[in-house]
């Protein structure tokens, strides 16, 4: 167990696995309301993203925390951020 907590704030991995992962997960959830098929009940695009949020977050968190290739993890999060932001921008401004 490493020493906690102050030097952790200087760690790039902390910011990547913490706030960045949370932000990207929330964006994926919101964007899913736009592209996910609503189904006959017209609720799938609301309920499934909500249910999947903890799962999406956990996958991204463990990936960014355990990866040895930080650059790849950064680009993955940047890519997900850009794609999902674009979907939401088109929904509100398009």
């Amino acid at each position, binding site marked *: 167990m490493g020493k906690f907590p102050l030097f952790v704030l200087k760690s790039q991995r902390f910011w990547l696995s913490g706030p960045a992962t949370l932000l990207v997960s929330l964006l994926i959830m919101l964007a899913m309301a736009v592209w996910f098929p609503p189904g006959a009940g017209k609720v*799938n695009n609301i309920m499934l993203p909500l249910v999947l949020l*903890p799962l999406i977050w*956990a996958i991204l968190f*463990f990936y960014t*925390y*355990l*990866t040895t290739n*930080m650059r790849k993890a950064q680009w993955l999060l940047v890519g997900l951020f850009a794609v999902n932001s674009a979907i939401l921008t088109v929904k509100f401004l398009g």
Partner: protein
Amino acid sequence: MNDQTPTLRSKAKALLSLHSWSGIVLGMLLYAVIFTGTVAVVADEIGEWSNSNYPQHLMLTSDIDATVKRLSAQTPKEYLDEISTYENDRQQLVYFFHTHKQNPSGDMDEYGVQYALNAQGKIVTQKTGFGSDLYAQDDTYALSRFLVSIHTELHIPSPWGLILTGILGMAMLIASVSGFMMHRHLFIDMFSIRKQRDGQPLKRDSHTVAGTWSIPFAILLAFTGSFFSFSTAFGIPAMGVVAFGGDQEALMYALVGEQQNKSEAPMASADLNLMLQDAVQRQSAVPSFLSISHLGTESASVLAFFMPNEGKVGYEQLVYDGTNGDFVEYKPIVGSVPSLGSSILSLIYPIHFGTFAGLFSKIIWISLGVAACYVTITGLQLYAHRNQKNDSSWQWFSRMCIWGFLGLPLCSLASAVGFFVSGSMATNQSIWTPLSFVISAVLISMLSVFIKNTLRLKNLLLAGNGLVCLLLPVLRYTTSGIGWLQALHHQMLAMMFVEMTLLFCSGWCFYALYKSMQFEGQTNNQTVTTFATQETAK
């Protein structure tokens, strides 16, 4: 989390670090949520026990149709949009005539007149207000509501309490998933208590064994708990902004599965009693509540809600056409037609609350909850011991562990004492239940600061827990006059279950106290023997 040398870092070591820190940083709060969650599994039973109630199935024995007509005539017309009916834990039928409007917090809420009628159909109480306020002030559920509220929001104002419990759910997810990934020999670890071990090594083995057994349960509960917290706190409104352009009303109608604009043309309604009888026949059970909408109009409908029935996992909602009394459909939990979202949601509820097989599944959920509490406790104790060994200034951490682990159950028991005492004095139980918790928390905190010997503090709190567990059945009996023979006669299963659990907990506390005092005695003897040997040698 050092990113300078990631390639050198062993993943197992990184997972161990993650597992430890996620438990240590939020461990005490996590324990609070897990402990109160374990209690909340039997919230309905606690509600029945605290009121010495046995369900009389008043919905079957009362003339609901005539009562609704009678009450409708004396209720302002604007509150006739919807009528909710259920039997409360004080053998009364509650009728809430309401409409929907925004409450002072800006949330859509029910507003109207609530009547509570006794078995003879006489109005006992009549209140007007928002549904959320009426429920928050209802003394019937003061104890169970308070205990559930600690679990869901830690009594922190909305939405921050929900966000915090959501974060705690994620911490639990991290701790359990990293715990799972760390195990190289999962099946061996399930049975790896070494007999020759004692003290801290035994505790470490016990932590691993209890943790391994409860991993699937912890992952499921953390996942579903995060979903409940986040979706209630901000998820559903946020999705409403994206999917419905911020129209919260449209979102609610999509989720509830109703048309937004219904015809209000007058039309005679069918007999409510016949619809109720049909629903009871179809489900072989009494509904938890009835929701009667737009009565006396051509869009009248009746919904009967059932808790999971024998052999079924999810809740059931039966819808009837209120104008002719015909059965219309089994309505999904969300939306108007069956969907994947609705199916998943109808599974998530019973998984989180353990309601899928009645009291049997609840007992399993409680046992696994106790195992999860034990894992949190031993995890923090191991951390405290490791640091205390090298640095005696870490004793505060052990003290905090005792304060939290034994103090929280004692405060929860004290809130039940407050409920019964205030009830017998005819004062406000909704105020005195949480106040008793706060008073006992202050007292326990003071004791934790002033008693220097941590073993003595532990013994005192154990004795307190054991005594209050014994006291509560006596208090309940003196305030209600309903004894065990009567409870057995009326098959008051919930009440007997809670009292047996209290007696079991009391026995466990006194046994733990006995073992702790035995340990204290042995330690003192060893100290005296060592001192005497040293003196003889001199």
